[in-house]
């Protein structure tokens, strides 16, 4: 792999990508696998009015929760905010608009965005007032389905175990979760990784996210979800 395809960057080199009001998609599930170094950089930059898309709101001081808890987010599409009471409070206070999406449907909406599909049909919670609110329906023969539109984002941030310099990614156990999906759905995708290796060091068969989906690679400064359960 030659220089043209080398995507290794410093935090300073990606910092200009973050802006007020941006749509930000983040990998992770309950804080596990959300990129802490990138989240800290976004927090430090102080951007606000963010529109988030992600599985949950992490914990108050772990994962995306660090940004949510500061009131920097105006809108979120997610499946769960229970582990971050501050998110719930902001919602109750009318300072955070929350669109709840069933977890697996949210994952598929993100995947659809990454796969260049306009949306999917769903029968999940099709008779549920809260989930169906504002959604389109579609009749196929005698059956009625809900349309769940694809989700993309200005910026997608993900966490991986290793990247080669082209941006091929592999993940570690259940820290994979929504990361490969979010990696494909960002108009710009930044991967924070535990280890950066030369091209050719990853086995072709073990690569989960092909490098074409990744624009920038950042060395992680260490994760923050260890013993999140404690």
């Amino acid at each position, binding site marked *: 792999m030659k220089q043209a395809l080398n995507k290794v960057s410093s935090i300073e080199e990606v910092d200009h990508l973050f802006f007020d009001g941006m749509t930000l998609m983040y990998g992770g599930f309950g804080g596990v696998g959300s990129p802490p170094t990138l989240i800290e950089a976004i927090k430090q930059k102080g951007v606000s009015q963010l529109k988030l898309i992600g599985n949950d709101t992490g914990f108050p001081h772990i994962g995306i929760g660090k940004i949510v808890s500061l009131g920097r987010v105006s809108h979120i599409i997610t499946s769960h905010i229970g582990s971050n009471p501050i998110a719930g409070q902001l919602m109750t206070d009318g300072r955070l608009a929350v669109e709840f999406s069933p977890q697996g449907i949210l994952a598929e909406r993100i995947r659809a965005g990454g796969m260049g599909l306009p949306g999917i049909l769903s029968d999940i919670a099709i008779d549920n007032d809260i989930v169906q609110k504002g959604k389109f329906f579609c009749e196929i023969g005698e059956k009625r389905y809900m349309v769940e539109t694809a989700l993309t984002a200005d910026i997608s941030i993900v966490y991986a175990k290793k990247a080669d310099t082209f941006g091929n990614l592999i993940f570690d156990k259940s820290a994979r979760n929504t990361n490969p*999906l979010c990696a494909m759905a960002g108009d710009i995708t930044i991967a924070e990784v535990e280890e950066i290796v030369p091209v050719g060091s990853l086995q072709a068969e073990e690569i989960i996210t092909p490098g074409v989906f990744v624009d920038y690679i950042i060395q992680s400064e260490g994760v923050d979800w260890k013993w999140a359960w404690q």
Partner: protein
Amino acid sequence: MGLAIETRNRMAKRAAAEIQSGMVVNLGIGIPSLVPNHLPRDFAVMFHAENGIIGMGPSPIHGEEDENLCNAGGFPVSLVAGGSYFDSALAFGMIRRGKVDLTILGSLQVSETGDLANWIVPGKKVPGMGGAMELAQKAKKVIVVMNQTDKHGQSKIVQKCSLPLTSTACVNMVITDMAVFLVEKNRGLVLHEVFKPHTIDEVLQLTDATVSLHDKIIFS
């Protein structure tokens, strides 16, 4: 939830009796997480997690936890031989495709027609549905394990749920600290078992729903 550990274990043990060897099972947090302790050792059960695991094994001993190997509730787990990791989209694909044979989960309310309400208490507790809607709607069998009553002594089994629903007509079995109910296609809610020292009358008194009695109610 204030239940004695013996009661919790009895409920978990009863739920475990519904598991057959070879099944793919998804467990919610709380009492359902105790279920694996009550399975025969020679059983082959593949435990599924929404974040992207099949084949979860027991929690590792303290100090051996891997921060990158957690269940959907964020608790450290292990992996059995034959288990694998995948992304969350695939995890839910398994559920929707009917590959999860059984889910055992907690609830706030269950109606006599098997409606499930376990994701939101408007104005009070708004955690979000997480994966509950897919699991309730698409797992082949849904067992609810919950207290018979809430902290105010009100029945959690109701004629019609007052809380927003997770899914309609999805619950197959309810195991409480007092009894075991089945939701049957033609008969609706049927009382099948009563946990000693409780009596049928006690159970019925704390069940705010139309209940049929099974021909042979088991006292266990």
